[in-house]
């Protein structure tokens, strides 16, 4: 890529921030990160040691131990949907369902990224709760779009029946999992299933549509368990006797192989994955090698101001996500409130779109500065063109959002921001290149949409503990709601002090409600973000996501850099 030179970006942390500020920011975020880690641990513990012991007593591994044995030693587990159903309880007994009773994660197996979908056998024997089907389908969708092999580790006693009305009938009801199984199969995405234990009712379709099915000696698959079979007790029928490996491996041929235990099953699944084509990443690096950023990614945990209204330098963030901290900025002089450019991540080309939060010059009115984190005309046009070019060239896009929204007011309307915004929305909606969205901090209004928020179908949407996802900030919404009681400067106009106090109280209540809504944990619990990660973990996630995007050779068009459209655009815009 001779003509597109990647240039150094970022400054050493000591020069970017004074020590006191850095420490204070880091301490603040560390508190939030610790709270997040505690929640993850809570989910990971399932229903606790008692249930884990129950699993182990049966000679089975717990689900997390299975994941551990499945993956390459020393490789990370990138769990998605960890906090789904967090804080929610179900049924008359008000039961919790950590992680919705299923682990969905990206793991490396034999040097290939795979999507693992594993029922959590320490949560009600892996039964399906409200949102469990949706969580599984989300993982399947990611696998389908990235052409990643799927490994199912099945240990599922069926729907959690008290909540069946929320999991059975709808468009994303349990049956849609099997539809996804079929679509994956149709698209030629490899699916490998290991049945470790119960696999009752519809759950049976999930492994059976898979290409290869392994069963342990204590696994069974049945349309209905022995409990529903008339006369089962007197004729000594058990679920294992009617649906165990003796029947399904040898007689019905619904499964392919029987193995003694979980360990042998996981070894066998690894060997199946090893038969698949290897990762194409090395090829698409075009001779380059993966390299860490020059500026430590862990420093991202100290770069964000304590007050969410304060700005920070987005280039310092980019410098901590990109290989060697090298970046090629696209059209830097136009729409400077937006940063677009190319970098290598794990040696692979990726496009980045990020908000510049600093004050920038108004393009027409000399001497006028405008705040960043807002979409203005030129920036929108630049982003739309960048997004289209990435899609043309097959370069995956990483969106880094810290966006308050579109510019508003007479100038914005006169310039036709609605039209420019529509162009960007069109580009993002029709892109086929993989997009990954990170809600670094603010994700408000149409800005969230324009920068490939979840409704625009990014492969993955990540949040941080700092994320504030809402249609607008609480203060703004309160102003909107109490507009008739406010003057031009949004000061309360009231007949009496009592009335003024009531209005102020009402506005505070609105703000508090929005603040609660903006909690990323709530967003994660209702699947509005796929996972919350700490800023320090972002580099790992971005690297992994880009590797996944490039893994399947031939699945999408990725051009070589000599024929990138950026190659030409670089000549035209400078």
């Amino acid at each position, binding site marked *: 890529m001779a003509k597109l030179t990647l240039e150094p970006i970022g400054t050493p942390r000591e020069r970017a921030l004074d020590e006191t500020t850095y420490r204070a920011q880091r301490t603040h975020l560390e508190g939030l990160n610790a709270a997040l880690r505690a929640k993850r641990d809570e989910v990971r513990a399932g229903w606790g040691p008692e249930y884990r012991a129950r699993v182990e007593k049966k000679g089975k591994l717990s689900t997390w131990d299975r994941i551990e044995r499945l993956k390459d030693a020393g490789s990370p587990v990138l769990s998605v949907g960890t906090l789904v159903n967090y804080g929610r309880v179900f049924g008359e007994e008000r039961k919790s369902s950590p992680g919705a009773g299923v682990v969905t994660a990206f793991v490396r197996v034999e040097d290939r990224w795979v999507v693992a979908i594993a029922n959590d056998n320490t949560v009600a024997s892996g039964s399906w709760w409200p949102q469990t089907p949706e969580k599984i389908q989300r993982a399947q969708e990611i696998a389908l779009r990235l052409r990643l092999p799927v490994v199912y580790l099945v240990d599922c006693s069926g729907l959690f029946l008290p909540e069946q009305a929320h999991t059975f009938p709808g468009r994303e009801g349990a049956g849609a999992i099997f539809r996804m199984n079929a679509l994956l199969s149709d698209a030629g995405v490899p699916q490998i299933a290991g049945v470790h234990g119960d696999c009752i009712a519809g759950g049976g379709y999930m492994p059976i549509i898979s290409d290869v099915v392994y069963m342990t*000696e204590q696994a069974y698959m049945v349309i209905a368990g022995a409990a529903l079979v008339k006369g089962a007790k007197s004729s000594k029928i058990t679920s294992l006797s009617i649906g165990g490996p*003796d029947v399904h*491996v*040898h*007689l019905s*041929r619904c499964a392919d*192989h*029987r*193995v*003694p235990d979980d360990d*042998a099953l996981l*070894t*066998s699944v690894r*060997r199946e994955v090893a038969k698949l084509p290897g990762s194409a990443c090395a090829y698409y690096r075009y001779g380059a090698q993966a390299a860490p950023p020059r500026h430590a990614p862990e420093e991202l945990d100290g770069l964000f101001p304590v007050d969410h209204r304060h700005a920070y330098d987005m280039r310092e963030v980019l410098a901590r996500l990109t290989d060697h901290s090298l970046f090629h900025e696209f059209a830097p002089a136009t729409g400077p409130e937006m940063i677009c450019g190319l970098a290598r991540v794990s040696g692979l080309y990726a496009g980045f779109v990020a908000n510049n939060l600093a004050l920038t010059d108004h393009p027409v009115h000399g001497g006028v500065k405008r705040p960043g984190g807002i979409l203005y005309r030129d920036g929108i046009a630049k982003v739309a063109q960048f997004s289209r070019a990435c899609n043309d060239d097959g370069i995956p896009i990483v969106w880094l959002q810290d966006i308050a929204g579109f510019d508003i007011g007479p100038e914005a309307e006169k310039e036709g921001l609605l039209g420019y915004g529509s162009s960007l929305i069109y580009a993002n909606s029709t892109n086929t290149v993989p997009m990954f969205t990170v809600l670094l901090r603010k994700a408000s209004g149409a800005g969230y949409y324009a920068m490939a928020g979840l409704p625009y179908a990014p492969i993955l949407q990540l949040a941080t503990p700092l994320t504030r996802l809402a249609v607008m900030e609480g203060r703004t919404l309160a102003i909107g709601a109490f507009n008739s009681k406010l003057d031009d400067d949004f000061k309360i106009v009231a007949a009496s002090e009592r009335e003024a106090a009531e209005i102020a109280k009402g506005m505070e209540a609105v703000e508090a409600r929005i603040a609660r809504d903006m909690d990323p944990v709530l967003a994660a619990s209702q699947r509005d973000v796929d996972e919350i990660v700490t800023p320090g973990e972002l580099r790992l996630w971005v690297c992994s996501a880009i590797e996944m995007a490039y893994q399947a050779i031939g699945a999408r068009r990725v051009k070589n850099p000599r024929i990138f459209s950026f190659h030409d655009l670089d000549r035209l815009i400078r």
Partner: protein
Amino acid sequence: MFKRVLVANRGEIAARVIRACRELSIETVAVYSEADRDAPWLSGATATVCLGPAKASLSYLDQDAVLQAADQTEARAIHPGYGFLSENAVFAARCAQQGIAFIGPTPASIRLMGDKLEAKRTMAAAGVPTIPGSLGALRSADEAAALAERVGYPVLLKAAAGGGGKGMRRCDDARALPRAFSEAALEAHHAFGDPRLYLEKFLEGGRHIEFQVLADTYGRAVHLGERDCSVQRHHQKLVEESPSPAIGAAASFGYVSAGTLEFLRDASGGLVFMEMNTRLQVEHPVTELCTGIDLVREQIGIAANRPLSMTQDGIRFSGHAIELRINAEDPDAGFAPDPGLVTAVSIPASPGGGVTVRWDGGVAAGWRVPPHYDSLVGKLIVHAADRPAAIAAAREALSALRLDGIKTTIPLHHRILDDPDFVAGTYDVSFLERKALAAVPRG
């Protein structure tokens, strides 16, 4: 693990497999021909199915009948024993097609090792020494002659698809070669439908050494020591050398289950590969007594995708074992089969004091040994601290063994055990012929 295993064999090996299954709490289905209707080993099985008439091709070799029996009895695995269908790749493949676990290697391995030329090439590629000669089929008699000059006469011409001496010719000089070549090719074509020949240097004398290997479906393999089969029927010596190339070779083509690599040890002590048997060997108890490992149980576990229960480091070889095959044959009448009614059976027990006596049998008093099958009626296996002790214990056990009503190889075994050369350990594969202890038919 399997709930029910069908044992597709007869005699002592059927009894042996049934015992292993019982120890694993697996039910067994014994199949039998009309000639074996009241055979003693059938009583050990959970269920029995008659396959058909006495003739093996209509019973024990009838693949449809065996598969049908497995189906109707809901047996999910078949142990083929040795002989009969044990090295039949098509049968193994048909089992797989029907969802029945074949307790043995994969069809591909059976086929590969069944083609003697392919087997040799595979082993050579894995770094195992092979007998000097051709690694590919010979295109002409001239090519054979040129090669024979290089390796030196005498040479053997062998059929690639061979077995049983068909299509095999020994040539002692260049003059005999052209004729031997055309005869052997013709014979091979008639016998196997495949005229391809290859050539090997003929090694005189030498000892027949075989290595037992076990491999699981996870690519792990171990060797369980060597057996010396130089005297037509059997004694075992333990050598501490590690036949690692043998394991490497088995692993190189994905071998699974129990198998035996046969080598010839030449005068200089070097081992050269002869062939691989992709089944349980008749003489497997020798290995079992020296290692304490139950090969049949391991085979069954491997077929259920269990990992090997041992590692190479954990295998300890102890003592010395000798197996004596007891055949219903008259050793003084050219080993003529002597079927008939067994009137009394007396089996020696282990005397203690570090000596183990094991009887793997398929006879009982009141049973008539049928004439239709191999004449082996049982195996006496003796294990003791060392070779002299094992020979002494074998003599004693043999004296206590009684199979009345039929002629057996017991007297011959007495003569072998008393032979000074045998006792001294100086013998080779031509031992019986040379010593004229019995009239050994060649063929």
